[in-house]
């Protein structure tokens, strides 16, 4: 074997080696700093305040996009009626569903250990349920596949580790967590391109997702001055400042409008 053949063989082996070592995850980012819990006092429950409110949609009603599930007969068979995207869901009372509302700043140096209970993200009816969830850093996310078809779950984060895992029908729940704060991580199923979801990862527990009435409630806040943000996947983020005293409940309503020319 001459030198050229040796070099070619070594290059091929090297490529195969990297391919074999790759797994389905991108190279890990350094996570040491992110996994360390911030030092600080816990919130005193006796003084905890609440911020509540709703997210109102203004100026028209965008046309909902219909999903085409015919690429997988198992998915299409699950729905007797047309299915529409959850990208923009306007409730009957004119409020917006699936808006991620969270405390953006003002929390100081409190410590917020990750909850023991996992957040649950289900693949049900070939849709992610719920469409938007929030978790704390290092809190478990329990991912289910309730469908009788194969899904792959693929978060596409910017600062956390990206991974892509298949979940055949009847698969055991998948437990994952995100060590770094990130707003918001898109999640997709590459098998079913209409399936999209978002995960908000925060260091603290002060977040909520608006429901069928467009309302949200953030409980357990220590007294202080805060910036509250409301994120909607299509229309972006709006913010408001609020001051809460001990045991106080404040109402903060948001209004989200489509940009000029959008909607109908």
């Amino acid at each position, binding site marked *: 074997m001459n030198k050229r053949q040796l070099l*070619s063989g070594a290059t*091929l082996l090297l*490529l*195969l080696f*990297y*391919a074999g070592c*790759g*797994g*389905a*995850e*991108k190279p890990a980012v350094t996570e040491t700093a992110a996994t360390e819990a911030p030092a600080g006092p816990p919130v005193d429950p006796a003084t905890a305040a609440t911020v509540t409110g709703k997210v109102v949609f203004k100026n028209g009603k965008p046309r909902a*996009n219909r*999903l*085409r599930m015919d*690429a*997988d*007969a*198992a*998915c299409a068979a699950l729905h007797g009626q047309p299915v529409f*995207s959850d*990208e923009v869901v306007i409730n009957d009372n004119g409020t917006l569903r699936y808006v991620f509302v969270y405390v953006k700043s003002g929390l100081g140096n409190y410590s917020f250990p990750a909850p023991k209970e996992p957040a649950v993200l289900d693949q049900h009816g070939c849709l992610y349920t719920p469409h938007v969830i929030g978790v704390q850093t290092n809190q478990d996310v329990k991912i289910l596949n309730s469908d009788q*078809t*194969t899904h*792959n779950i*693929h978060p596409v984060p910017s600062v956390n580790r*990206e*991974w*892509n*895992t*298949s979940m*055949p029908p009847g698969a055991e729940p998948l437990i994952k967590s995100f060590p770094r704060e990130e707003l918001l991580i898109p999640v997709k199923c*590459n*098998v*079913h*391109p*209409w399936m*999209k979801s978002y995960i908000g990862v925060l260091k603290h527990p002060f977040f909520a997702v608006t429901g069928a009435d467009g309302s949200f409630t953030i409980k357990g806040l220590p007294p202080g001055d805060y910036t509250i943000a409301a994120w909607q996947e299509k229309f972006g983020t709006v913010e408001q400042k609020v001051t809460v005293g001990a045991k106080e409940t404040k109402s903060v309503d948001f209004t989200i409008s489509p940009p000029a020319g959008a909607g109908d």
Partner: protein
Amino acid sequence: MPARPSPALHRFALLTAGATLLLLVAGALVTSNDAGLAVPDWPLSYGRLMPPMVGNIFYEHGHRMVATFVGLLTVILALWLWRREPRRWVRRLGLAALGAVILQGVLGGLTVLFLLPRPVSLAHASLAQIFFCLAVTLAAVTGRSWQEEKPRLLDTDSPSLRQLAEAATLMLFVQLLLGAAYRHSLTSIVPHLVGAAGVTFVVVRVVNHVRALEWRPRELWRPASALAGLVAVQLLLGPAAYLARLAAIESPQPTVLMVALTVAHVAVGGLALAASVVLALYCHRRLAVPAPRLGAAPSPEKMVA
């Protein structure tokens, strides 16, 4: 050793080139349907040879199946050439194609295992076109027409048709890469648009040059005509695919129209490159470069022995 044309070998090389075009289409279907990671493992698919072909798994695993078929054809072609082909450079070209298809398979695996790193995806797209050029070249040079000895035309223009055909091939290749870079979100559409203008300019010159030849060999005229027609179709398909892509931005999933137009744009681009490769090859085969001369001005074309 004089080459003896083997019709069977030529037909097999044509089959390999045709299957490679099908592979380009299958690859474009994967990208356009956002199916690149529908199968998270490699080289197996969901741990087996044949996964359930549902949703985007159909496109991704279908691409792998066509790629395996092309790989098999290339192995057979390389072995066939090695055993039967008297021209050493053609045998080596067969080996180069084999090396390229193996490397292409590894790059495809790396794109899956490392979650579509854009440079690797672009390398995969680039090598696809290079391999297609190799397959087309093998199909051309194993044909009877290539191996017939004919007098050469003297092309005295500057730039010569040979240079223009080579420039067109290179520019088409770069243009296909710019298109891939745009589809993989590595660049904006602007470089691809600039490339389209450049390709059109050079192709028009190539075709005009071939038309101006007093005696037009069929081997030059046919690929030149095909190139002109394919580039004209591309100029229609390109804007249509782009507009369909813009219209699909609001859609929660790739639209059928966007996928169809994009795949057609990629396929016709590949065919245009193939036509350009064949033209450039036959320019080398049938045209003579004038020797440095002193004195009298030459006529535009002359037959040389």
